[in-house]
């Protein structure tokens, strides 16, 4: 019995801890289904209907996730401002990952190239003996 009471209390506290859903918090995660812009910037008639739908669900005490699920039931998965996980929408998930992998590969290649390069620049060809003698003489004269 004590266990049951404790469980009910935990569940109750968890539910109470969940913040109340608000229209601005949901609007930026939902699309205007007709104009395909975020709901919070759309003034289309269907966007007004979607906002009214969200307000009514908030008034019923639904959480944000419950409201988003209700929106999907009414308007389909495209109402959510996130790409789907099949068909062309899949590209929205795969392309950023592929670009990150490419960039990481590029960084690794560059790092390996830098590591294989010598620290000091390579010395030039040996001086001709005559030039070497003249250079020594000029340096000696310069030091005086």
């Amino acid at each position, binding site marked *: 019995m004590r266990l049951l009471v404790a469980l009910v209390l935990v569940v109750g506290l968890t539910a109470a801890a969940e913040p109340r859903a608000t229209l601005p918090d949901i609007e930026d995660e939902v699309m205007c*289904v*007709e104009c395909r812009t975020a709901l919070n910037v759309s003034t289309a*008639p*269907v966007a*007004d*209907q*979607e906002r009214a*739908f969200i307000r009514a669900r908030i008034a019923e005490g639904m959480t944000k996730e419950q409201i988003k699920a209700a929106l999907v*039931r*009414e*308007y*389909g*998965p*495209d*109402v959510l401002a996130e790409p789907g996980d099949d068909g*062309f929408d899949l*590209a929205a998930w795969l*392309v950023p990952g*592929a670009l990150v992998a*490419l960039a990481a590969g*590029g960084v690794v*290649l560059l790092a390996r190239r830098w590591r294989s390069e010598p620290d000091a620049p390579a010395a030039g060809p040996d001086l001709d003996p005559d030039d070497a003698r003249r250079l020594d003489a000029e340096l000696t004269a310069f030091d005086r």
Partner: protein
Amino acid sequence: MRPRVYWPVSLAAAALVALLTYGVTSTGPDTSIDERLADGERVEAPVADLPKLGSEGTGSLADHEGKVVVLNIWASWCPPCVEEMPLLQRTHERIASRGGIVLGIDTQDASEDALSFLRDYDIDFPSLRDRDREYGRSLGVSGYPETFLIDREGRIVALRRGPITRAWLDEHLNPLLEEQA
């Protein structure tokens, strides 16, 4: 840039451009039905099981085989759809005895609002729900309202991308009703 690095980068850039091109070109409406109708063809209408609006179960065009169907794509939030509804209701009443029916496809609409709208306007022709316009896309729907006239063999004979008029219905619907299956 060294050739060893150049080719993978070029290929990746080309793939990205191809992806973007596909993304941009694939988002436009399908106009193939319009083109075939313009060539004088009758086009097999797509059939899909859709939830009935206001009742349990599903329905489709196939349920009305042998009838002339005025298939109307509508939504309760769409002002031109609201305007043409009385004409569609009168048409439904007029053609019922001649083997015709108006079938609504309520699209991207909250079902509560849609039902309330039908009650307010005393609309009693049946409607199905196409919640995300998937069925509409197979008809090349690009806006609301749109209307398709379908013969007794399930083929699209005429379409109107925009509000219908009485004159348009008279021109296209009356000859269809005269045809026998």
